[in-house]
Structures are given as structure tokens and as C-alpha cells.
């Protein structure tokens, strides 16, 4: 019976940790071999699995147990196909993660669970784990005395940080005069050329052209990820940077000490994904829309607004 295929994999993994599952794994293997050679499984493992499942279900719902018992082969096939389907989808996710840095493909803006379990920065996985940074060092913009203080930890080759860029620009315009925005570069090791891009942006900052260059990097993010230094230097040229100064800064890693400081601050803050914002010390993880930020900023003003935000979050 096809269910043996899954049983074999499950027991094989369990056998690594406990010897008592090894005979079951062997039985499963035998059964798999028989099944794929179109012969009936004679180990009895399939019968035991069926009996166990039906008996357990019988305790709760005799009707459901009857249906399962009668159509067990169909349910088995369904279960096996779903398992292999989800396995294939997971492999596809891993492939995307390896190639694009997120499991849903290059254009996705959804969060990826794999970000949490890989890389140096994956030890934390909940907003509640985050610790508010204690300073406003970084690439800054706006009024240092403004009432709205937003810190962003971002990675220049991360598609999610790129996705959030329009929102950041919108916030800077909408809250002009009130906002003090601080960007702390936090290059993720699982994104190609993330350190190179961060280093280049800091070098551009030294020439007073941070915003122009940063915009170009996000715009050409795919090329930066694939071609690295070559693409970055071309972008620097297009942004009309002084290339001698830029090359000196970039090639000699002159901004690495500063970059290391931001990375350490990110680790101290328990950053586990980019972008992560602190909106007046309140953590917001992932790329959000301008509306969502507005809600975060203004919802305390009135109950009506707060309810509106909640409904908006639920709907969107």
C-alpha cells in the first residue's frame, strides 16, 4: 500500500534517534519495494497502520471511521499525493531561498520562514524578542527634534527592504518636519553582495550622495545581487560620484568599521528579518504599506481610528 512510502521515510528518520524504529523502517522499505514493483505488501505494516488509524478514529466518530475503513486506499493515495505535493513545494521554496533569498521567488513580498532559521541573524523570530536600539547613529534624514522617530534596519540586496523603500519615501514626505528617519544598514549573509552594497552606500554618503546612490541600488537590486562589485561601481559612475574617492573608500573597506557597528547594533536589537522598523520604539517587521504605518503612528489618537486600523489589518 502506498502509505508505506511515507511510513518508511518517517521511520527511517526516527531510526536515526532510536533503534526501536529500525525494524519498522526495514518493514517500510520492503513494503515500498513491493509497492513500486506492483506487488502486494506482505509485511503487514500497512494493515497495522490502517488498524491503528481506524481504531483511533472509531473512539471519536464511528461514522468517520467507517468511511476511512471503507475507502482507506483512496485516502492513502490522497495523503501520499498531498505529502509529495507539499514536499515538492518545500523543495521549490528552498531553491528560491537559495537563489533569490526568499522562498516565494524573486518578486514575492511575503515573509519567508526560512529567513528565521538560516544565517547568523536567525536566533529570534518574534517581534516581542526585539530590543529597541539605544541610539540614532546611521544614515539619517529629517528633523532630529521631530516627534516621529523611525529607525530602520535594512539590507540593500533584500527584496523586502526594497519593497519598503516606497513607503519610507512616502513617510518622509507626509511627515516632513516631524519625522527623524535613521537607516541602519544590516546586510544579511543570505543575500548575495549585501555587504558590498552596504559598503558602497556608506562610501556614497561620504560624498554627500547617499540618497541618489541608494535609490539606484534599490532600482538595480537584481543586478547588484548577481554582478556585485562590477554592477555597484557602474551605478556609482552613473550617480556621478567621484570614482577615485569611491574606489579608495570601497576597495580599502574604509566603511567596514562603521558597518560592523550597525550590524552589532542589529544583533543587539535581535533583528531576525529585514526590514525591521522601530516607530517611536514600537517594532514593525517586514515591508508595510503607508496606510499601515499611518495606523501605527496615529491609532492612539482615537478609538475610531484604532478600530479602523484593526479592520484594515484584518482586511488587508
Amino acid at each position, binding site marked *: 500500500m502506498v502509505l508505506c512510502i511515507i511510513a518508511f521515510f518517517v521511520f527511517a528518520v526516527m531510526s536515526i534517534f532510536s533503534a526501536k524504529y529500525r525494524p519498522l523502517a526495514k518493514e517500510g522499505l520492503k513494503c515500498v519495494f513491493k509497492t513500486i514493483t506492483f506487488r502486494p505488501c506482505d509485511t*503487514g505494516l500497512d*494493515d*497495522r497502520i*490502517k*488498524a*491503528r488509524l*481506524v*481504531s*483511533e478514529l*472509531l473512539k471519536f466518530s*464511528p461514522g468517520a*471511521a*467507517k468511511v476511512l*475503513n*471503507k475507502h482507506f486506499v483512496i485516502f492513502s493515495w490522497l495523503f501520499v499525493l498531498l505529502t509529495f505535493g507539499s514536499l515538492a513545494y518545500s523543495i521549490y521554496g528552498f531553491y528560491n531561498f537559495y537563489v533569490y533569498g526568499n522562498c516565494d521567488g524573486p518578486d514575492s513580498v511575503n515573509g519567508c520562514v526560512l529567513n528565521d532559521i538560516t544565517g547568523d541573524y536567525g536566533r529570534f523570530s518574534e517581534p516581542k524578542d526585539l530590543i529597541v536600539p539605544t541610539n540614532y547613529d546611521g544614515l539619517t534624514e529629517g528633523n532630529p527634534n521631530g516627534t516621529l522617530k523611525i529607525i530602520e534596519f535594512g539590507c540593500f540586496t533584500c527584496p523586502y527592504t526594497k519593497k519598503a523603500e516606497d513607503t519610507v519615501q512616502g513617510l518622509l514626505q507626509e511627515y516632513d518636519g516631524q519625522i527623524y528617519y535613521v537607516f541602519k544598514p544590516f546586510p544579511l549573509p543570505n543575500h548575495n553582495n549585501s555587504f558590498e552594497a552596504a559598503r558602497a552606500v556608506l562610501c556614497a554618503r561620504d560624498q554627500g550622495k547617499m540618497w541618489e546612490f541608494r535609490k539606484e541600488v534599490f532600482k538595480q537590486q537584481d543586478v547588484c545581487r548577481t554582478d556585485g562589485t562590477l554592477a555597484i561601481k557602474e551605478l556609482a559612475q552613473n550617480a556621478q560620484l567621484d570614482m577615485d574617492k569611491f574606489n579608495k573608500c570601497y576597495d580599502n573597506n574604509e566603511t567596514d568599521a562603521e558597518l560592523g557597528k550597525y550590524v552589532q547594533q542589529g544583533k543587539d536589537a535581535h533583528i531576525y528579518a529585514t526590514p525591521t522598523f522601530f516607530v517611536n520604539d514600537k517594532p514593525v517587521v517586514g515591508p508595510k504599506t503607508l496606510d499601515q504605518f499611518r495606523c501605527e503612528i496615529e491609532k492612539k489618537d482615537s478609538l475610531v481610528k484604532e478600530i479602523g486600523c484593526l479592520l484594515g489589518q484584518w482586511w488587508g
Partner: protein
Amino acid sequence: MKEIKKDFPVLVNNPDIVYLDSACTSLKPMQVIEAEMEYYKKFGACAGRSSHRLGRETNQRLDECREKVAKFVNAEKDGLIWTRNATEGLNIVANGFDFSKRKKVVTSIVEHHSVLLPLIKLRDQGKIKLDVVGCDKEGNVDFSKIDRETALVVTNSWNNILGTGRKINEIAKLAHDNGALICVDGAQGVPHHKTDFKNLDFLCFSGHKMLAPTGIGALVCKTDHLAKLKPLMTGGGAVKTVELNKVVELPTQERFEAGIQHYAGIFGFASACEYLNKIGMEEVEKHEATLAKAFYEELKSAGAMIYGPDSPQNHSALYSFGFKNAKAHDIALMLDREKIAVRSGFFCAQPAMEVIGAGDGATRVSGYIYNTPEDAKRFGEILKKINVLYS
């Protein structure tokens, strides 16, 4: 009988298990386990070979054991041969019997493989002419095929798939009237029913089905027949003198017991007979009749199909059953999930299963002295739930 459960360590250690597979093998009481251990603790020597104190004591004790087991079936101890099980006994008779004058062997289709296979083998070798008597759906067999050409009749006294018994004395008389001998497979009969060897020629039974350890059984023969029977194997302890050109076999049953025997098992076997005698085989029969009735009622109320006679009368506490469209193994496995141990399959009697209409196998419930009507009730409750799956 309720108190008996505490003698059985398996039941004490697993109080939630209902063991209903005694036709396969019975559980062993502590008394038997201790008797087996006694050999290793107090004796530990060879019997019939060593003249030292321990050897002599072992020999004497074994002699007493032989007498106890023989008496259990009302036989002479000089006609009892220790075997591994009933299967070995049946093979000794089939292969050692003198078929030089008559070649015909009559048996029935409702027999264990241990009866049929040695005979089929001899038939295929051209050594005997085998007549396998058929049966009706209820397992009734007509032995009128026994005639003056018949050398040997082989039959069970109680069978292991239907739980029904045979009128062995009548069959024995028919065989004797025709100048034939009768060999009875007592594997299911001896443990559950008072058995009298008086009218029989050969009787084979296993210890493990009657509370004794595994690996020990007995073949009981009339001493006249013993002398004519050829042993299946020979070796140390089976011969009187050995010269390279001449071997003189022992005239006694030791001729069939080459090599060191399963002494501990024999101690346990005798102890099992003592245990059953203490209860009394009449009491055992009475208790099993109650169990047979209880099982029957539970099976009927659960809607199960019973193979063989649809009545608890003259039935041992053993039934093969099934549900329409249900696989026998599925039923057994689901009962096992509820800690009820029964057997499923063909019970080493495939031709018989075909004849009674259970060609795809059946589930078998079989009780013994340690089972109670409460066990039958619990079995019935679970069976009713399982029946929901197939109704």
C-alpha cells in the same frame, strides 16, 4: 476460576490484556515456570548417563514426570515418548509406521498442517495411499471410508478452527474393526478435555498448549506398537550398544529420544499436568462450556459470522469468525489496539479453511482456564464497535 488469573505472570504484568489466543499457545502459570527453573537450580545434570548423585536424581525425577504426563491421558509411562511438540509426534508416527502390508491412510480435510503435510509427503514419495475425507460446511466428517485396506487413521480429537470435537472412540472402533490403527492429534483436545488413551494407538500432544513450556510434547503409544515404530532420528541415549558393524537400539521409548532431552521443559510439563489435575479436567470442561456459551452470545450479538456449527453446544471455547467484507487481520489488529489478543489467518489448516468457506482466512477467539465471562464481554463490546465499520 477467577482467582486463577493471579497464577499467570503474563496476566499479572499486563492486567489490561485479555488473552484469547490459547489455541495457539497457552499462558504459563508461575508453578510451571518455577518447576522449569527447579531443574536448573537444583538438578542441572544429564539423565540416564551419569552415575553421580545429580545425574541419578535427574533421572528419577524425569521418570516421575513421564509417569505424571502419561497418567494425565490414562496411558502407560513406558509408552510415552518425549517430543518437541505434537508435530514431531505426528511425524514420528507417519514416518516410522510400518506400511509394508497395508498402504492406505485415512485422514480428514479438517486437520492441521502437521497432520496433512507428513502424509502428503509420504504419498508423493509413493510410500502410502492417502485418502483425505471431505467434510460439510459444519466440519462434519464421515469416516466410513475406513476399510480392510486401511493401515492407519489419523484424526484430531478436537479441531483448531471450528472448536468442535469428534467421537474418537467410535472412529477408533471402526479402525480397529478393520484391522487399522488410529493416531490422534490431541493438540487441541488434551489441554481442554478429559482424554482417555485406552482405546487409541497413538496420541500426540503439545505441552505449550496446556500451560507447559514451549518445546516439549509427547507421543503416547501402545507399547506393542512402540516396538514396531521406527525412530525419526537416532543418536546418543537411543542405543544399547554400538559397534561399527552392528548397532543395537534400545527396546524402550528412549530409542526415540536421541540426544539430551528438554529436561526443564519436561519438569514444567509434569507440573502443568499437576496444575490441571488439581483443578480437575471435569471443572476445566465445565468452565470452557460456560466460556463457549459466552463467546457465542457475544459473537452473535456483534453480528459476526461464525464458521462451523452455529451453536455453543458441544463446542470448545474456540470460534473462527468474520464480518462480511472485513479482512481477518484487520479485525485482529483492531482488537489488539484494544488489548484483546486473538489470532487471524488460516491457523495452519488452509485446506480446511477453504472447505468451511473461509478461503480468505478468519479471526479466531480461543479461551482457557484463565479467561472469564467478563473477558468474553469485553471482547464482545469491542467487536460490536468494529462491526459498525462493516455494517
